[in-house]
């Protein structure tokens, strides 16, 4: 019961994140949505580590690493976004269209 509640929460968060990441035009929101997805992953890991069929500390460790990596990715993502903003003066994904056949 506990586990499935966490899993459901994570799944919902993940789906919201995925939906946002795939549909939103504002890059900042897209990046935040990606973070949302990653956080859903962390909930999963921690929930499994505590209430899973085979509880083990590996889940916590994995969550820590996921957090760290997500931060690194966010940092690079923001850096890319800033660089993009400085050259194009926009943060809308659909205006990132200078690269086309």
């Amino acid at each position, binding site marked *: 019961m506990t586990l499935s509640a966490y899993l459901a929460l994570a799944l919902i968060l993940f789906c919201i994140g995925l939906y946002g990441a795939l549909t939103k035009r504002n890059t900042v929101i897209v990046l935040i949505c990606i973070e949302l997805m990653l956080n859903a992953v962390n909930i999963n890991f921690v929930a499994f580590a505590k209430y899973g069929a085979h509880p083990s500390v590996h889940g916590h460790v994995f969550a820590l690493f996921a*957090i760290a990596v997500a931060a690194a990715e*966010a940092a690079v993502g923001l*850096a890319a976004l800033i660089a993009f903003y400085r050259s194009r003066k926009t943060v809308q994904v659909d205006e990132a269209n200078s690269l086309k056949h």
Partner: protein
Amino acid sequence: MSNIYANSYLIIFVFLCLGVLLPIGALTAGRWLRPHVPSDAKATTYESGNNPFHDSRVQFQVRYYLFALLFVIFDIETVFLYPWAVVYDQLGLFALVEMIIFIVLLAIGLIYAWKKKVLRWM
């Protein structure tokens, strides 16, 4: 044991509620007490007495972002350092060596930022 855990977070929740209630209460009380005589002049943005011009949400200096990014990286590293520090006694020499390597890598990152003049505010 588990009660301590649950109760502790209950306390934190209570504190959160109190923290939210106080400003709400105070501001509501203030609404009853304070005068309310709005005018256009009062609602203008304060710019040292000049008439406000332009939008103030201008582009910031990039250095703010740079510091923000640096912060994100270094702050997250504590995710590894804190657990390590807590169980340091039980880990032995290997953990020390490993963490020194980690810190050296962090330091290299810092030196990199330093050399690239990221740390310069002006």
